[in-house]
C-alpha cells in the first residue's frame, strides 16, 4: 500500500463510465427494499418511538420529569442540542467550504453530508423547542405583531439562536434541493414507474440539462456556498454565545466561538465517517466513496481533534493565568471534582484516540477508524455535557451546589433523537441519490474537454 500523495488521486475508482456511475448510484432507488433494510428501519423506528414516548411524558407532566434541578437548570436539553447542531456542521463544511477550496473529492460525499446536516438540525430543533416547557407556545419565539403588544428580546443570545438555527436549516435545505434538481431530472428520465416519474418530474421542476441553465446554476452554487460558509461559522458561534454571554465561570470565555466551531467539525466528520462506512458497503459504492475519501476525512478529524485539545489546554491555562478564583475552581473541579469521570472520558476520547490517525495504516483501516470515530462521537457528546453540567453544578455560592443525575426520560429523548436521525437517513438513501449524480459525472475521468484544461 504505497500511495503517492504528491499526485491528485482519482476521485472515482474502477474506471467507471458515466452511465455506469449513474446506474450504480441509482440502483438503491429502483430496487425493492431488502429484508435487511426493513430490519434496520424497524430498529430505528423503535428508537424513535422511545423518544416520542419520553416526549409525550415530558409534554404531559412538564419538564419536571427530567433530571434538571437547582442549580443544574440546563442539562441534556442543551447538551443534545449543541451535539446535534455540531454534527450538522460537517455537512455544510463539506458541501460549501470544501467546494470553495476546490476540493474535488468532496463531490462523492457532499450530498450525503448535506442530508445529514438537515436531519441533524431537525433533531437539534427538538430540544430547545421542548425545553421551553410549553412547546405549543413556541410561536412566541418569533417576532410577530401580537395582542400582547410585546416583541422578542433581540439582544438575547437565545433569540439569536432562534434566527441562526432556523436560517441555517432553511439555507441548508435550499442548498441541498438546488443540488438535487438535476439529479431528480436524471431519475425522471430513467424511471419507468408512473408514480415515481410524476414525483421526480414535480421535484425536478422541468430541468432540461440546458447549458443556458447550467451557467446560472453554477453561479448560484458558488453564491450559496459563499453564504453557507460564514453561516456555518456563525451558527456555532451563536450557539457558543448561549454560554459565553452569561457570567457563569467556565462559560464566560472568549475562546468559545472558535472552540465550538472546531468541535462541531470534529464531531460532524466523525459522524459522517460512521455512517458512510456502512452506506458505501451496503450500497456497493466503494468505488465512488473510496477509502481515499475516508482517509481525508480522518485527517480532518485528526486536525480538528488537536484544535479541540488545544482549546481544553488553553481553558485551563487562562483559568490559572486570569487569577480569577472562581474560574480556577471550576476547572480544577472539572478535572477532579464529582464529574471528573465525564471530564476524563471527554479528554481520552477526543484528544488521545484520534492520535492513532497519525499512522497511514490505521487511517486507512475501516475497523480502526470505525472504533475511533465512535469514540469521538461519544467524547464530543461528553464535551458538551462537561461544559454545561460541571459549570452549573458548582457556581459562586457553595450553599447552592448540587449534583445532576439524568432520568430515564432524558435518555429516552436522546435515544429518540438518534432514532429520528437514522430513520431519516434510511428513508433518504432509498428515495434520493446518495451521491450527486451530475456532480460526480463532472469530475469523472475524461468528463471535461481536453483542450480547455478540465482539471483546474
Amino acid at each position, binding site marked *: 500500500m504505497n500511495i503517492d500523495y504528491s499526485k491528485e488521486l482519482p476521485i472515482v475508482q474502477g474506471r467507471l463510465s458515466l452511465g455506469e456511475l449513474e446506474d450504480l448510484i441509482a440502483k438503491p432507488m429502483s430496487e425493492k427494499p431488502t429484508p435487511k433494510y426493513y430490519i434496520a428501519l424497524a430498529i430505528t423506528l423503535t428508537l424513535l418511538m422511545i423518544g416520542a414516548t419520553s416526549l409525550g411524558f415530558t409534554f404531559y407532566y412538564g419538564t419536571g420529569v427530567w433530571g434538571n434541578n437547582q442549580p443544574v437548570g440546563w442539562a441534556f436539553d442543551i447538551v443534545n442540542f449543541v451535539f446535534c447542531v455540531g454534527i450538522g456542521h460537517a455537512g455544510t463544511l463539506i458541501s460549501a467550504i470544501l467546494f470553495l477550496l476546490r476540493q474535488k473529492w468532496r463531490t462523492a460525499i457532499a450530498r450525503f453530508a448535506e442530508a445529514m446536516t438537515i436531519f441533524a438540525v431537525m433533531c437539534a430543533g427538538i430540544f430547545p423547542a421542548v425545553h421551553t416547557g410549553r412547546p405549543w407556545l413556541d410561536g412566541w419565539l418569533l417576532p410577530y405583531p401580537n395582542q400582547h403588544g410585546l416583541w422578542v428580546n433581540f439582544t438575547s443570545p437565545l433569540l439569536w439562536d432562534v*434566527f441562526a438555527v432556523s436560517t441555517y436549516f432553511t439555507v441548508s435545505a435550499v442548498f441541498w434541493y438546488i443540488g438535487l434538481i438535476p439529479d431528480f431530472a436524471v431519475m425522471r428520465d430513467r424511471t419507468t414507474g408512473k408514480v415515481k416519474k410524476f414525483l421526480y418530474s414535480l421535484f425536478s421542476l422541468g430541468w432540461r440539462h440546458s447549458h443556458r441553465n447550467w451557467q446560472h446554476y453554477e453561479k448560484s452554487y458558488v453564491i450559496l456556498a459563499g453564504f453557507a460558509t460564514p453561516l456555518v461559522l456563525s451558527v456555532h458561534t451563536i450557539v457558543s*454565545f448561549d454560554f459565553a454571554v452569561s457570567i457563569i465561570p467556565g462559560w464566560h470565555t472568549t475562546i468559545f466561538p472558535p472552540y465550538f466551531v472546531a468541535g462541531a467539525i470534529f464531531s460532524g466528520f466523525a459522524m459522517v465517517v460512521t455512517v458512510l462506512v456502512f452506506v458505501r458497503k451496503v450500497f456497493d459504492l466503494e468505488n465512488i466513496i473510496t477509502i481515499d475519501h475516508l482517509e481525508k476525512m480522518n485527517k480532518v478529524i485528526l486536525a480538528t481533534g488537536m484544535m479541540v485539545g488545544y482549546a481544553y489546554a488553553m481553558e485551563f491555562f487562562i483559568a490559572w493565568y486570569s487569577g480569577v478564583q472562581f474560574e480556577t475552581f471550576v476547572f480544577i473541579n472539572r478535572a477532579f471534582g464529582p464529574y471528573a469521570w465525564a471530564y476524563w472520558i471527554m479528554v481520552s476520547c477526543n484528544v488521545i484516540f484520534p492520535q492513532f490517525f497519525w499512522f497511514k495504516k490505521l487511517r486507512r483501516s475501516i475497523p480502526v477508524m470505525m472504533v475511533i470515530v465512535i469514540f469521538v462521537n461519544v467524547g464530543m457528546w461528553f464535551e458538551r455535557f462537561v461544559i454545561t453540567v460541571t459549570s452549573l453544578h458548582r457556581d459562586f455560592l457553595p450553599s447552592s451546589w448540587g449534583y445532576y443525575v439524568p432520568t430515564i426520560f432524558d435518555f429516552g429523548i436522546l435515544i429518540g433523537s438518534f432514532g429520528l436521525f437514522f430513520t431519516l437517513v434510511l428513508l433518504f438513501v432509498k428515495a434520493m441519490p446518495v451521491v450527486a449524480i451530475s456532480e460526480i459525472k463532472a469530475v469523472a475521468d475524461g468528463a471535461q474537454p481536453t483542450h480547455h484544461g478540465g482539471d483546474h
Partner: protein
Amino acid sequence: MERNTKLHGLVALFDTPDQIIHAAEKVSHSGYKDFDIHTPYPVHGMDDAMKLKPSKLGYVTLVFGLSGAAFALLLMWWTMVVDYPMNIGGKPFFSLPAFIPVTFELTVLFATLATVIGMITFFFRFPDNKHPLHDTPYMQQVSRDKYGVFIGASDPKFNAKEVRALFESLGGKQISEIMEFEKTWQDAFNPKFIGILVTTVILVSGGTYFTLNKLLYITPFNWMEHQFRGVPQEKSDFFADSRMMREPVAGSVARGHMPYEFKDSVAQPADPLENPLVNSAEVFRLGQKKYLTFCSPCHGNYGDGDSRLNQQFPNPPSLHTAKLREWKDGNIYHVITNGQNVMPSYSHQMTVKERWAVVSYIRALQKAKNASETEIEQFRKENTSNGN
C-alpha cells in the same frame, strides 16, 4: 400529451465533451441565436463556446442581501427603541453589537432565498414540465451520458435542411426533429380549477387564522396554570361557609390601617391624639386641597360657617370660635373621624394623613384670622426680607 406537426427544433447527439464544445462553437459562430446545448453536467469552457454573457444572478443576491440587512436593523430598531423600549442591563436601547447576529442571519436568509427563487422562476422560468424536449429519447440520453445540441425552429436563420447538414458535418448522431406539444388551453372557469383556488384560499386563510388566534393559545396541558390550590372568589367544598377566602384572624390589623382608639366614643376624648404631622408647605397644600373638597361646602372656604348651606341645614358652626381654638388637634381630628351630631364621619373619604393635614390647615386658617398686629408686622418683614 399529444404532439402536433409543428416543428419545435432539431437536435443531434455527440459522444464526447470535446465534440460538443466544438459543435457549440460552430453553431454560435454560424449566427444561430435560438440554440442550446444539453449536457448531463456543466462542461467547462461552454460559456465561451456558446458566447454567453456572464450570469447576472449576483445582482439579485446583492440587492436582496442588502434589503435583508436593512430590514433586520429597521425591525430591531423599531421594536426595541420605538415600540417597546426595554432597559436591559442599562445598555442603550439601540445596542448595535447585540443586533449583529440577527442582522447577519437575515442577510444570509434573504440573499440565498432570493437567489434561488429568483433563479428558478425568473432566470429559468420553472416549473416547466411541458417543454417539448421532455419525454424525448434525446432528453433521456443527455440526462445520462450524451451531449446534445438543439437549434430552435423559431430562429430567423432556421432552415431544416441546412441545420441537418450542419449537424452532420459536425459528426452529430441521431439527428431528429422535436415536435411541439398540442396546446391545451386551461379554462379559467373550469370547475376543477375554481375548486382548487377556493380550497387554497380557505386552507391558507383558515390556517393563518387558526395558527395566530387558536394554535398559539392552546394549552394542551395546563397543570402549571391550574394547580391544586384555592383561588379567591371560588367555591370551596372544604370550608363550612363554602368560601375559598378566609376571614383574617380576629384582632389582626392590616398595614396602614391602625384602628382609631376612640372610634366608639361620642363625647370628645379626655386625652386626644397628637398631630403626627410637622408643619410644612406640603402638609398645608394637602390640607387645603382636602379641606376645600370635603369641608368648605358646609363650613365655608375660610371656616367662617358662612357657606351656602347656611339657613338650609342645621347651621354648620364657624371653625374660629374660642372653643375650637382652644381645642387640641386631636379634638378636631376626633370630629372628622367620628362625625358629630349631624356632621357625618369622613373616615371613609380621607386617609389618616389627610385628616391630620386638614387639622393643620384649620390651624393655619385660625392663625390667619386671629393674628395680632405684631405678628402681621413680623410676617411682612420676613417676607420682604426674603425679597418677596
